[in-house]
C-alpha cells in the first residue's frame, strides 16, 4: 500500500499526464491512418517536424498558440509529402514512412542551423501564457500547467 500511495501523488500524476500527452496525440494520429488502412510509420518524423515548427513559430511570434498552428501546418505538410510519394508514385507506405523519419531527423537540425546563421537571428522573447486554461478555467495551478512559452 505504501508504494501505491507514493505512486499516486499529484506530481506523479502530473508527470504521467505530461509524458502521456505526446503518446496520446501520436496514437490518435496512428489510429486515424490505421483505420483508413494506412501503415503510417512516419508519425515520429511528423511529430519532430511539428515540434521544430512549434518552437520556431512560437519563438518568432511570441505566441504559443501560433506555434501550435505552425506545428499543425508543418505536420500536415509532412503527411502530405508521405501521401504524395505513396499515391502519386505508388511507393511503399512503410518504406516512405521510415524515410520520413530519417528526413525529419536531418531537416530539423538543418533548419535550426539555418535560423542561427541567418542575417537576422530569431530572438526568443519570453511570454507568459494567461494563467488560466482558456477552455476549462477551473484547472488548478494552470500556470504550472502551461508554463512560460519560451524559456
Amino acid at each position: 500500500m505504501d508504494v501505491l500511495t507514493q505512486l499516486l501523488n499529484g506530481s506523479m500524476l502530473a508527470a504521467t499526464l505530461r509524458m502521456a500527452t505526446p503518446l496520446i496525440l501520436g496514437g490518435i494520429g496512428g489510429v486515424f491512418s490505421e483505420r483508413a488502412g494506412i501503415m503510417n510509420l512516419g508519425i515520429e518524423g511528423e511529430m519532430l517536424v511539428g515540434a521544430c515548427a512549434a518552437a520556431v513559430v512560437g519563438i518568432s511570434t511570441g505566441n504559443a498558440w501560433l506555434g501550435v498552428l505552425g506545428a499543425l501546418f508543418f505536420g500536415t505538410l509532412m503527411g502530405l509529402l508521405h501521401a504524395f510519394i505513396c499515391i502519386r508514385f505508388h511507393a511503399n507506405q512503410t518504406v516512405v514512412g521510415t524515410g520520413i523519419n530519417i528526413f525529419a531527423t536531418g531537416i530539423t537540425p538543418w533548419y535550426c542551423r539555418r535560423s542561427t546563421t541567418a542575417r537576422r537571428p530569431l530572438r526568443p522573447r519570453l511570454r507568459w501564457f494567461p494563467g488560466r486554461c482558456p477552455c476549462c478555467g477551473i484547472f488548478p495551478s494552470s500556470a504550472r500547467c502551461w508554463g512560460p512559452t519560451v524559456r
Partner: protein
Amino acid sequence: MKKNGKSASFYGKKLLFLLLDPVVSIVLALVVGAVMIWVLGVDVGLAYRALWQGAFGDMNALANTLLYATPLMFMAFAFAVAYRAGVFNLGAEGQMYIGAILAAWAGYAVTGIGHVPHILLVLLAGAVGGGLWGAISATLKAKRGVNEVITCIMLNYIAINVTNYLVNSRGPLRGGSTLPATPVIQDTARLSKLVAGTRLSSGILLAVFCAVVLYIFMWKTRAGYKLRAVGMNVQAAECGGIPTTRYAILTMIIAGALAGLGGAIEIVGVHSRFYAEFSSGYGFEGIAVSMLGANHPFGILLSAVLFGALKNGASAMQIQAGANAELVKVLQALVIFFIACRWSIAKLIECKFGGAARKDQAGKAGREEG
C-alpha cells in the same frame, strides 16, 4: 558463340538499366542537398569535396566507411530476405541487440578454447539469439494472425530495454568498469583487423560471404524459390502446395539470424564488449539500404557502402565546410524517396521511345488505310 555474345550484351544492358535508377536517384538527392547547403551559406563544392575526402580520401577514411557499412549490410539482408518472402521485418534492431548481447556473453564467459572455434561460437550465439527473437513475431503471426510490423516494433523496445537492464548497474552481465557494458571479451573471440592501424575488422569479408550465400540460397535452391513464391503471391503459393506459414516462420528466423550475426560482428569486430544502446538506428537505416539495393544481396553491398560513406563523410563535411552533419540524413531520406517512387528512368525511356514507335506505326497504318 554468337548467341552467347548476344546474351552477354543483353545482360550488360539490363545491368546498366538496373544501375540507372539508383544513380539518378543519388544525383537528384545530391542536387537537392546542394540547394540546402547553399541556403546555409556554405560553399557547396567545398562541402561535397569534404564529404568525399572524409569518406574515401585515404586508407583510414575508406576503412571507416566500410566499418560503418558492415552492420548496415547485415540489417539490410535481414530486411531483404523477409521482404522477398512478403514479411515486413522492422525488428532488425531488436534482433541485433539480442544477438549482440548473446555474442558478448559467449565472448567473455567462455574461456580456454582456440581462436577459430571461439569466433564461430560467438557468431553462432549471435545468429541463434537473433533468430529466436525473429521467430517470436513470426510465430505470433502464423499462429494468431498478429501483424508482424506491430510485434517487431514492440519487440525492438523489449530487446533494447532488456539488454539495458542486463548491463546497467546491478544487472547480471555488468562488467567491472563504470560504463553500462559487459566485461571485455576474450582475446580469442576478437576478429582480426583487416588493415593494420585502422578499426576495420574482417567482419566486412563475412558480410560479403553472407551476400554470396544469401544469393545462392534465394535464387539457386528450392527453399529460396518457395520463399520468393510466398512473397509474390501467398494464395498462389498455398495452391501450389507450399506450406506458407512454415515458410513465413523460416523467413523470420533467417532474417533474425542475419540481424543477430550483424550485431555479433559489431561486438567482436569493433567494440569488444556490449554497450547499452550501442546502435545508432542501424535497423531502420537497413531498410533504406535494402530498398536502395533493390532487395538483392549484391545491390545491398553497394548501397551499404554508399550509406556508410555518407555517415562517415558527414563529420568531415561539418568540420571542414561548416555544413552540419545531419544534412546527410536528409540526403539519405531523399535517396529513399526517389528510389521508393519507382519512377523508373529505364521504363520512362522505354515508354517514350516505345510509345513514339507505336504512334509512328499507328500513324503509318492510318495513312495507308486512308
